[in-house]
């Protein structure tokens, strides 16, 4: 164990600040009548922005990754990039939560505190360099998310979502931990780089320990990113959870899980490369196929977006599959674009949503182009981006992922990818059909915006279009997120 330098704690200032913010909100929220929703939202926005600034200033990233605190954590471009993306996703989630927290009869401080704590977990996670520290961070994220999914305490569906999420999530965490312990047993190492170095020898001496270990580790990670066949929790949780929470799970939580999946595979298991590539190729294929096919028949927008997020997990896996420099960049760029696109789409769901889950059906979008042309246009942009049609960030991102797969010689997986994304047009455009081609009826819910929601949607639209038309600077930004490859 290398010596412990207490000054290294300063380098964790962003995470510490965010955790303090979360705890402060939690305390303030439980004193007396708690903090009003808007105050809580403003406070969490403040903490998020301050944290982002700290990430940009304190965490000086040199060309070489810097291991800190006994190599539990690492400061590198990869961690920094994903921390910023996650913070952006959380900030947008806060914006789209304002109205819904106001509407609810629940304490606002609690909600925002949990959001900040989950985000803290994510930030530790993407910076984790040790299987144990990664696991603890992941649990901080997961436990906060379980509670968030059940935030509507008196709604059965919300309870159901939380319970399902908790039971299955705990199971997957256990599998992940067990896998990690097997690898530790075989190699005696928890640090990713040392683990990678020790694996070849352990494969010989440890026999079944290593394959069982890394497979269980993969199952746990693939569960977190909702890849088929470990996706069954997703639709129910996404539908049952309050919509802003769903958006948070689909964007920030997924981004963080992908980041750590990539880090563990690329930095911890590079010596098993050919083996896990086959597994990832299979998982990516069935995920793209099943996610898109299952989405075809959905009439509930949240459920459709849940399946769509499963499908998108499949696309992102293409970048990991390539296991190349381009592959890593493409994953980073795609998750950046995907954060804005998904949050935008879910923000539109919030706009139409009423209490008790009304306004979530595809038919509730009927005639939206007449009643709210700008909102309809925004939704159209998100739908195009989700399908992967220019001029949107979704298009550039998908091209990037497919390019990575083609370059690495996985053309057949790329073929599945392009064909399934063509199929996805059908269900995404069932919403466009309602918005532009159908007339509204008396029962159609009126869109109900708020300044915060409008700001969130506008940000997402602008980001989606800029990422599609002028992606240059953002690609360079994503390129800073490269990891040293085997």
């Amino acid at each position, binding site marked *: 164990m290398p010596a412990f330098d207490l000054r290294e704690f300063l380098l964790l200032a962003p995470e510490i600040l965010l955790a303090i913010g979360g705890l402060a909100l939690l305390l303030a929220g439980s004193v007396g009548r708690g903090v009003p929703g808007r105050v809580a939202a403003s406070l969490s926005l403040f903490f998020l922005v301050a944290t982002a600034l700290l990430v940009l200033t304190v965490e000086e990233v040199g060309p070489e990754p810097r291991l800190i605190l006994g190599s539990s954590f690492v400061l590198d471009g990869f961690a920094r990039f994903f921390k910023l993306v996650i913070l952006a996703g959380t900030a947008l989630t806060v914006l789209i939560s304002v109205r819904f927290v106001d509407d609810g009869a629940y304490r606002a401080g609690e909600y925002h505190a949990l959001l900040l704590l989950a985000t803290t977990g994510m930030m530790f996670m993407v910076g984790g360099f040790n299987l144990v520290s990664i696991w603890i961070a992941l649990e901080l994220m997961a436990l906060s998310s379980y509670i968030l999914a059940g935030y509507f305490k008196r709604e059965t569906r919300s309870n159901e979502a939380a319970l399902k999420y908790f039971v299955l999530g705990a199971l997957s965490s256990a599998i992940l931990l067990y896998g990690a312990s097997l690898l530790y047993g075989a190699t005696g190492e928890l640090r990713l780089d040392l683990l990678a170095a020790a694996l070849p020898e352990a494969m010989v001496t440890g026999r079944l320990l290593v394959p069982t270990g890394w497979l269980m580790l993969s199952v746990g990670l693939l569960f977190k990113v909702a890849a088929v066949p470990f996706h069954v929790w997703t639709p129910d949780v996404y539908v049952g959870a309050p919509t802003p929470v769903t958006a948070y799970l689909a964007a920030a939580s997924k981004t963080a899980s992908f980041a750590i999946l990539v880090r563990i595979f690329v930095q911890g298991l590079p010596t098993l490369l050919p083996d896990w590539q086959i597994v990832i190729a299979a998982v990516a294929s069935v995920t793209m196929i099943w996610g898109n096919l299952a989405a075809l028949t959905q009439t509930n927008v949240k459920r459709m977006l849940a399946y769509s997020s499963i499908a998108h997990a499949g696309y992102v896996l293409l970048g990991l599959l390539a296991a*190349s*420099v*381009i592959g890593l*960049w493409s994953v980073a760029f795609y998750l950046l674009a995907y954060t804005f696109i998904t949050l935008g789409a879910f923000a539109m769901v919030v706009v139409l949503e009423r209490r008790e889950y009304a306004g979530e059906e595809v038919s509730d979008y009927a005639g939206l*182009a007449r009643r709210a042309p700008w909102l309809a246009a925004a939704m159209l942009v998100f739908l*195009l981006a989700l399908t992967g*049609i*220019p*001029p949107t960030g979704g*298009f*550039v991102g998908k*091209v*990037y992922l*497919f*390019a990575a797969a*083609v*370059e690495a010689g996985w*053309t057949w997986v*790329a*073929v599945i990818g*392009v*064909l399934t*994304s*063509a*199929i996805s*047009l*059908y269900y995404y*455009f069932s919403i466009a*059909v309602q918005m*532009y*081609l159908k007339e509204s009826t008396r029962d159609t819910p009126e869109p109900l915006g708020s300044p915060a929601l409008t700001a969130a949607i506008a940000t997402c639209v602008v980001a989606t279009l800029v990422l599609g038309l*002028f*992606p*240059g600077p953002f*690609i*360079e930004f994503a*390129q800073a997120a490269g990891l040293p490859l085997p």
Partner: protein
Amino acid sequence: MFDWAHTIPILSIVCYLPLVGAVAILAFLRGSSASTVRRFATGVAGLDFLVSLPLWWAFQRDGELFQFRESAGWIEAIGARYEFGVDGIALLLVLLTTFLGFLAFLSSWSAIQEREREYYIFLLLLQTGMLGVFMSLDFFLFYVFWEVMLVPMYFLIGIWGGPRKLYAAIKFFLYTLVGSVLMLLGILALYFFNGDGLLAWPGLGGDATFSVLRFHEIASQIPPDLQFWIFLAFFVGFAIKVPMIPFHTWLPDAHVEAPTAGSVILAGVLLKMGTYGFVRFSLPILPEATRELLPWMIGLSIGGILYGALVAMAQKDVKKLVAYSSVSHLGFVMLGIFALNPAGLNGGILQMINHGLSTGALFLLVGILYERRHTRLISEFGGLSKVMPAYATVFLIITMASIGLPTLNGFIGEFTILVGVFERSWVWAALAAFGIVLGAAYMLWMYQRVFFGPVRHEENQGLRDLNGRELACVLPLVVLCFWIGLYPKPFFEILEQPVEYIVQRVDPGYAEALAAARPGELPAVVAGSGE
């Protein structure tokens, strides 16, 4: 006198003027009446046509292959650039687009009565998308325009279409999207072949590129099996667009359900994007695969000619008949292109223009009739030549143009194609010629049933003849049909250089033989190709 066109970014202006118009409608004409929007949009389209006109005179027939070049960095990290430029082929198609586009706007005045603001916005966006496709010399840029254009077309069919519009719109979108995403993989394969893997990725300091001209240059280095796969990927994308059988089934649906202007643009311009794709990309970049798969391409083309004609003959609906006639005519275009010799390519490309003019005019005319009677069934008409003499006359001229009667444009195109095809094989030529006979049969039979005989239906007695605006829509097309029919020389002149360039790329042996036969002519092209 039009030299100034070379000094300004005229292609970008032509391409984005409609987009600016659409944004202006969105931003400034919010509360305006429908007629203001209509006039404004038509004005923008007309202006766009006027701006594009100088291209015709400023283009130097013996100058560089691609002219009016514009070049700027775009996404440096992946080597995608903003590259515009036109050769003779693209130039003709650009002019066809702005011209037919303007007429389509004009024809919509009475046909579109609801949600006009949105209609004209989508139509303007469509113009920008199509123009960009023909102007792009960067494959990435090309692909962006190629896909962007699908969205407004989808809404044009879906909102203002006929009874089965939803089905037709999504079918159109899905079909073309499936084709284009496979094409994207082909583009990526080319990109990585040229870039030779990771090291050339610009993010790592390499110089990977999507430049079409660069791909033309490396064509001979691409190994045959890679060529084969890329050709197939491109083929799916382009063949669906053309459409070649068996990928044509979206076309009758989309054509019949689309509003008149949509059909005009669909038939006149959109289908040409497929044939243009073959000419610009498949042939020069993948010559070996082209030659290897030639029998299949010829077979599908001839199959399309005959099948389209036979199915057209069986139609009860005039619009559907015209739609299937497109399948047949586009088969001709493809046949000419795949003759891989100057005559065939010249004819094929000219026939692209001809088909745009005559089929565009036919859709306009059918639309005019539909507005009056709200039916397009042949059996509902008869004897119209007595009630609408002017209409009948124009219709007759266009019918003849479509059949290929001498003095009209169709004849020139089909004849040149046949000359080219005959050079390759008389059997193909004979089969194709049989398609012309069938074409004459279904068009004349339809004309006879609609216009001759007694007026059998009371409703047809009081039909109004063409009004001034309608005549203004169709007459320019008639004039152009005669121009190409009587004096096609300017068109062949502008096509000569690009066509020889393509022949030289796709069939160097033929080009050498040609040079031996006509010493002194080819070097000019070779010089141009080095560009």
